[in-house]
Every structure is written in C-alpha cells, then in structure tokens.
C-alpha cells in the first residue's frame, strides 16, 4: 500500500506536535527530510529506536525533532511507521507535513491508519471502532471504556455469546441429519433457559448504549428559568467548582456557546441558553423561544426556580416546555426566606407526564451542589455502572446489530412457545448469530467496512 501521513495532534498552539507516516516508503520518505547529527540514515537504524536530528528542506533547517522508528509488522498498522515529534508550533508542523507530501507521502483519509491496522489483521473490528471512540472521547470514563473495548473485551464477550448460539444451531442441524445418533430430548427447555441468559446479556449491552453515548459525547444540559431566578449563579456555582474544565468548544453543530465540565468522570455540556447571562431587558418572548430550542436538544434540563418568590406565569410556561424531558428542578436561593416549597412547585406539574427531581440549592453558599452532581449521575447511570468490568456499547452500528440479534432471539422463544418443529428455530438463531458476527467482523456484509471507516475522524 502507498505511504500515508497525517498530523496526529490538534493544531493548537501547544509546544509539541506529532506527524505519523505509515507504509512501504515511510522510512525512505523520512530519510529524505531527516538529518541526524552523525549522518546516519534511518533505514540503517534498529526498529523501535528514537533519533534526534533536524528536518531539512534542502539545506535549510525547518525544525528540531525526535523521530521514532517502528518497522512493520511491530507497529500500529503493521506497516513501517515513522513518527516525528516536532517542536515548532502550527506553522512549522504544517511545513514539515508538506515536505513529506512533496517527497512521496499522501495525506491519510479519515481513519486510514486504523483501517490499515484492521486490514492488516492488527486489530479486530470492535477494537477499530474503539479507537474511533477513544479519539473522540471527552471524559475519563469514556476513555476507559474505549481502552477496554480496544483490548478486545467486547470481542470476547460477543464471541462467547455467539458460541453459545452456535452450540444450539449445531445440535438442531445434527439432529436433522443424524436423528439416530442425535436426540433433541429436553432440548427446548435447555435452549429456553439459555436464551433468557443470552437475552439478558444482550439487553444489558443495548441499554449501555445510551450511557455509552453520554460517556462519549457528554450530557447536553440546558439551564432554564425565568429572569432573576439565579441561572447565572447556578452556572457559576458549577463553573467555580474546582473540578477541571475539560474543554471549551465553539459549537459547530450547535448554535450557542457550550462549556463542558467533568463531574466525577462524566462530561456535562452546559448549553448557555439565550438570556441567561445577558441583560434582563431582552424581550421575554425571544428568551422563551431560545430556551425552547435549547430544551429540545438537551438530555437534561436544569430548571432554576427562585424559592424566595412565588411562581408566576413564566414558570408555568417553562414547566410545559420541559414536559417529557429528564429534568432537575433547582429551588434556588435557599439561603433566603422560603416563599415556595418543593410541594408547592410540584403542584404546578399537575398536567405534566413526567416529574422532575426537586433540590434546594444556594448558589451563594454552595448548598445542594454535591446533591445535584449525585442526582445527575444516578439519573443517567442508575447508579449501576462500574467502569472497571462493564462494557459499554458506544457505536450506533453495534447497537443496531444487538437489537437485531435480540429480536431474532425473541422470535426463537416465540417459536418454542408455539411448539414449532426445531428446524424452524435455526432460522432465527442463524440471524442472531449473523448479527452478532457483524459486530465483531466475523461476518462481513458488503457495506460494513465502508460504514465503519467513513465514521472515522482524521488522525489516527
């Protein structure tokens, strides 16, 4: 395969940037631009060694670098790989990259390094997807999950479920062709029992998808409330937390500025809804419209009410808007004399189909802060998740295959309940087997490979 190159680190004004090259010509191309003080060529060096030197454009020194040499197959792609640690900032990084292109490398397509690793048999499909997740994961827990999938835990899990299914298929098939030596006495009870176990495992993985998505992307949280309820101060209460701010992203798909916070391993994407930090003289109608749009996109709504005043018409409008959403109602300003209790506010939710959790908070004293974080965590993870041994499905493709497998297995149970002859059971058992196989790449459908790798982002 031809030789590809990519800038692997973010183009930010950080001190260091890495360029990776992979392919047959990787070392030869690097040799064309790299000059070591002792004049030794990279192609003469041992694999898995680091070399100090300079990137040169003809005679002109472009950057001072460290070069890592990994010869195939002992590399990420199983091809010859060279990584160049540059030190000169964005412009220099781009200059080095262009030099490599001029010397025969081509820019990698999205996900191409991982695609090569997969195609060269270095990683299985679930691992490949995990790499993708790893790159885009925002929080510590998401990262841990990706690493665990990358280590093949998902592969092992799916494989063992498939083997169990295959065992039953094999029994049915053998009994059809060799009824003399293969009896299916008691087979259906055994299968039924096992099906329930398998279904439970698959259901657990399917349910983990929502958690997985949230782990990967964070919880989109909208803070709403009427003017002066203390939205800004609630935001500040979270902002002023000593927990680290993870990133600050200029929303590209979102139309508002968003800030991400890590609360105990989970990312909270706080959507700064219109009017919240701006002046109160904004027309309320526009404020409501903006809030409405923010609520629609949110996984979680923090509804801030002022417990030191009575509710008014705007509260009722907001309550109507957040119906059906996961929401937490913060009765803020709890340090002031209380004019409104949880019970009183709850009464306003009479017409709603969902009820929020009610908390007293004080942005001023910090009351309710810990309780708020704990509530958020338990709302999304039911307090059940422990990230050391649980697997989380984070790709929609995997989830869809799991759902298909689960539905096929339900059909098997139905067939048993309807006393269908055993040979009918194998139709849906085979379907489930195939769907699970697609997750780990043991079954290949024509669009599978493209589907996966087109989702990859640049870099890896």
């Amino acid at each position, binding site marked *: 395969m031809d030789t590809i190159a990519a800038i692997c680190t973010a183009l930010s004004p950080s001190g260091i940037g890495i360029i990776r090259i992979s392919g047959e010509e990787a070392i030869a191309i690097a040799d064309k631009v790299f000059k070591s003080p002792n004049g030794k060529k990279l192609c003469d060096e041992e694999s898995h060694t680091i070399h100090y030197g300079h990137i040169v454009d003809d005679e002109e020194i472009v950057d001072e670098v460290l070069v890592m040499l990994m010869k195939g197959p002992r590399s990420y792609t199983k091809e010859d790989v060279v990584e160049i640690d540059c030190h000169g900032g964005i412009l220099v990084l781009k200059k080095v990259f262009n030099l490599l292109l001029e010397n025969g490398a081509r820019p990698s397509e999205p996900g191409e390094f991982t695609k090569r690793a997969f*195609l060269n048999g270095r990683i299985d499909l679930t691992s490949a997807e995990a790499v993708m997740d790893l790159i885009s994961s925002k929080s510590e827990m998401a990262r841990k999950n990706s690493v665990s999938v990358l280590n093949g835990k998902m592969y092992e899990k799916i494989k063992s479920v498939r083997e169990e299914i295959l065992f039953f298929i094999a029994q049915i098939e053998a009994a*059809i*062709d060799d009824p003399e030596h293969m009896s299916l006495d008691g087979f259906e009870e055994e299968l039924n029992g096992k099906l329930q176990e398998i279904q439970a495992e698959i259901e657990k993985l399917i349910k983990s998808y929502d958690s997985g998505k949230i782990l990967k992307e964070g919880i989109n949280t909208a803070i709403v409330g009427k003017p002066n309820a203390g939205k800004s101060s609630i935001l500040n209460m979270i902002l002023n937390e000593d927990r680290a701010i993870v990133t600050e992203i200029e929303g590209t798909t979102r139309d508002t500025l968003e800030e991400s916070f890590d609360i105990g391993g989970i990312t909270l994407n706080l959507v700064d809804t219109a009017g919240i930090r701006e002046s109160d003289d904004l027309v309320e109608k526009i404020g409501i419209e903006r809030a409405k749009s923010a609520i629609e996109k949110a996984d979680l709504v923090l509804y801030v009410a002022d417990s030191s005043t009575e509710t008014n018409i705007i509260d009722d409008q907001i309550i109507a808007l957040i119906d059906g959403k996961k929401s937490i109602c913060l009765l803020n300003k709890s340090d002031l004399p209380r004019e409104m209790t949880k019970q009183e506010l709850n009464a306003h939710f009479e017409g709603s189909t969902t009820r929020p959790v009610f908390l007293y908070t004080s942005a001023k004293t910090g009351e309710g802060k810990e309780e708020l974080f704990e509530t958020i965590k338990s709302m999304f993870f039911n307090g059940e998740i422990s990230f050391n041994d649980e697997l989380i499905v984070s790709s929609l493709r995997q989830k869809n295959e799991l759902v298909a497998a689960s539905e096929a297995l339900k059909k098997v149970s139905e067939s048993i309940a309807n006393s269908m002859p055993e*040979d*009918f059971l194998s139709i849906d058992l085979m379907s489930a087997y195939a769907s699970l196989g697609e997750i780990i790449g*043991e*079954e290949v*459908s*024509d669009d599978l490979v493209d589907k996966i790798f087109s989702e990859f982002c640049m870099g890896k």
Partner: protein
Amino acid sequence: MENNKNNLIIETDVCVIGAGHAGCEAALATARLGFDTVIFTVSVESIALMPCNPNVGGTSKGHLVREIDALGGEMGKNIDKTFIQSKMLNLSKGPAVHSLRAQADKANYSHAMRETLENQENLTIKQGEVCEILFDEDGDNKIIKGVRIFTGTTYLCKAVIICSGTYLNARCLCGEAITYTGPNGLQAATHLSESLNAMGVTLRRFKTGTPARMDKRSLDFSKMEEQKGDEKIIPFSFSTNPEDIQKDQVSCYLTYTNEETHKIIRANLDRSPIYAGIIEGTGPRYCPSIEDKVVKFADKERHQVFIEPEGLYTNEMYVGGMSSSLPEDVQLAMYRTVPGLENCKIVRNAYAIEYDCITPGLLTLSLEIKGVSGLFSAGQFNGSSGYEEAAAQGLIAGINAARKLQGKEPLILDRSEAYIGVLIDDLVTKENLEPYRMMTSRAEYRLLLRQDNADFRLRKFGYEVGLVTKEQLDYVLYKDEKIKAEVERLKTTFVGSATKNQEYLESLGSAPLRTGTSLAELLCRPEITYENLSFFDKEREELSDDIIEQVCIRIKYEGYIERQERQVAAFKKMEKKHIPENINYDDVSSLRLEARQKLKLFKPLSVGQASRISGVTPADVSVLLIYLASIGK
C-alpha cells in the same frame, strides 16, 4: 496400445464417460438438447447400476431428485416407474425437512433407464473403456478434441463429460482379500487416470463402502420391526400423475446391533483395512462403516440396521447401516449377533472400494474443469457420494456442455436457489476431505428450498435450457396463480362466532373464536387443517392436493419464509459482487498469504464464493471488498 493398428475414427458432438447415475443424466441432457452423444460404459448391463443401497431419495437427497425432475432430468421419472415402496420422511418436522424416499427394484431401475437411453434420439451407447482424452493446446489452454477407447478407436468431439464413478483405478477390499475391480466385480478403468494426470488434471484417492447382501430365507423377520410404505404414495416426478402409481408395496425391516456386535468389531479392528492402514482413501463421515460408528460413538449401546429388499424378483436383502471392510469371517460373526440375523447367509460380502477422483480447486461452478475447454465432470469423480448427488451433477454438466456448444452462458444455480446449487458450490469451493454427501444442514436457506416447491424454483430454468416443455412451465404458472388467489381469499374471508362454529372448534380441541377471525388465521393454529376449514367455507372451490399444500405452507409459515427471504437478499448482495476474471491477487496487498494462495487456486467468481473458501477469513473478505471498490472507481 502402440501396436494397435486400428485407426477407426468416429465423429460426434459429446462423449460421456461412464453410464452410472451421473452419466445417464448428462448424456440424456446433451442428446435431448440436440447434440449427437456417445455414452461409454465398461458393461451395458451396468447402466444406471445401484451398487449400494436399493433406494432413491431420503433426507435432502429426495430434494435433489425433485430438483433434477424440475429441471427436466430423468431420475424422478425412472424411480416412479420402478419403486416398490415409497415413504415421505420426517413428517413430524417442518416442511423444509420433509423428504421423499423410495425403495427401488434395482434390476428394474437399471433396465428402465437403459430403455430410456436406448430410445433417446441422438444418443448412442458404446461398451468400451475410455483410455485417453485427446486435446489440442492453445497457449496455456487445452481444448478438447476427443477420446480414444481401449480398442484404439478415436471419437472426435467438442465436449467430454467424465462420469467415471468409482471405476478409476478401483480397488475393492474385504479384509485381507483385495481385488482390482470396480463395484460388483466389474472391470475397473485403469488407463484414464494417467491420461488425466498428463493433462494437468490431478487426482486423489477416496474410499467408500457397502454392506453385505443376505438371503431373505435365512433371516427371521419376526425379531425385527416392520417398516411399511405410505398409504398414499406421492410421486417424485412433477410429471407423474399420483393416481397412476398407487400400488401394493413391500416392507423394510428395522433391527439393531448390540454390545456383542461391537465387541466382535473392536476385537478385530486390526484386521480392518482402514484401521490397519491399508486403505489410503478417505471415507465419508456421514455414511460411515459399522467399524467407524462403533469407534466414533463408543458410548452408544446399539445402532440401527435396516433390512431392505433389493427387488421384487430376488431374495437378496440389503443390510443398511452395516457397511464394512472387515474380513469375511469377522463379517459373518458380527452380522449373526444382530436379532433376526442369527442364521444369516451372506450372498455378497460387504466391501470397501477405493478410487481416483479430482483434487479440489480444479472444478468450476459450471462443472467444466479449469484449463481444459470442453472437459466437464460429474458424480463421484468430483468427490461426491450418492446416486442423487451424482445424477444432479450429471444433469448440470450435460446442460452446461450443451450450452457451451450452443455458445450460451452456463446454468449456475446458487445456494439460495437449489440444493443442487449448494452441492456444486460446496464441491467447487470447499476442500472436502471425504466423499461429499448432501445433507439438509448444508443448505442455509432450506425453508425456501423445499422438495414440494422445486417446480416453482426450477421449472423456469429447465424451460430456458430446453429440457422442460411450455406446458410444464405453464402448469407451474397456473398453480402459482391459483395458490396466490386462494391465500388472498383465506386472508379476507372471516368467520363469525356463531355457536355451531364454536362447538366445531371445541370438537377439534381448538380455542373459541373472537369475532373477525380470518380463515387464514384459523389455519395458522397448529391443530387446524385446510380440510377442517371446509366447515366454515362450504362454497369453496375444490383444489388439487399440490395446490392446497402450497397454500397451507405459505400461510402457516409466512413469517419464517419472509425472514429467510431477507437472509437470502443479504446473501445475494455478496454473490453479486463479481470478481473480475483477470484479477491479480498479488495487487491486493493486505491479503494474508494463505488467503492469496487459496484465491489464486479456486478463482472464485464472486466475493460471496470467496468468503466460503477455507483459509479465507472475514478480514480477507473485507480487504477484497475494499480492493474491488477501489478498482471499480
């Protein structure tokens, strides 16, 4: 042969080598499609010989016979003329595994087929061993020119179909007694292998075997279970009128081996040619000898033994389930431990037979051999086992030889269209290490590949090829319309909850009705038959049994059929991803070495076929898909 002065030359279109079940179908097909055909046999008396079991059909093999018939082959018609017992197997299971099996009068079967061959226009029977295949060379390719027989006579032709069965370098083993003959002591073919090897068609050794035949008068049937035929006989052929073949049937008998039998076998394993290492060929796993069964299923206390008549006018009885290559003294002792066989007299000993067959990777899906234009092959030569498997391949090889001469595309059935498709794909794509026997479990889409709908699946192909008449095709179309109309009518005719209706259902042990239940919904209840529906549906049109059967299957199993059709759609997508003939696998850089070698050897036509080659992993298939996408751009 060097001194042979015979230089007689005869011209024809097609030469078929061998007149067993494959050869007969192949020769009939090419002759019926208008090509002058000569069929060679070492003995005219052995045409369509059944040297092993005296029956046609059985699990999954019955499907093959139905498919052969739907395509315009002969086997189904021939067994309908000559059966002496008929039974639909597996009726307690789903319709996918129902399978027809008929006991044949062996002599009649053979005679009837010979009569058909003798009276077939364009077809000549010739007794004589083919010793050499003649060809021209055109660069790397060889082109068939003809065959030469033992007498020195040359037959010039454009296509040759090898259907040599177990005759190539055959060797029969009965314990220490070894003879270099074909089955039943018939002359083996000892020259052709050399000629094939010389032209690059490499061969390997396979082994199969047959049990003893016993004198009926020496058996005690009172100690066995009688196995009768079906009361209502269903014909194999779609062209046979069921009413014409209802007749008195003979019985088979079931008995069992026991611990004593197994003891004798175990004590003498060192005298079995297989276990003593004398047999080099690999035997069929699914049609094992009694020695194999005793070794493999060591914990089984007994094995079934079927005693089946070899015909109406002979006392010979076939001892099904106990094929063996043990010496005669051990055979007799072992058979005599079986209840009912205590005083048995053996007419013909059980024996194993070893023969040459083609090595994997040389066949194509049209059954033409790679690198030799016009050379086709079928049957045991291709590594299969069984009469029906042979006949199916013979028919396809015959059709495709004819189509080649017509300048037409070959007929290739895929795995979702026919058991024949599964059979040939497996023979061509897999490295079978033992004689390949058709089995239900080999067909992935068997709910769609039923024996009852072979005409719906294949008549159209038979018609296109020219072996099926317009009337036969039209009948299928007529049937299909009738079935669709009746299914629709049953779905849209509703039954009321009147008391008499409820009482009737109760009498059938069925739950009471709610209003607005359709006849189709009622039919879905396992305890309700189409016959029962007439109670609610007095005015309905009388339909023939074959139509009613299809109506019931389409309604009762609708959901399953739809799901299987979805699986087929996914399968077809991969089958339609064609691999260009001129692909250079060395250009596909990420393929593993083993996969690259296998792909070069087997030259699959599609990605689907590639994925079934052993040694080609899913990751290799992904690599191939990406490569094909990249060159397609």
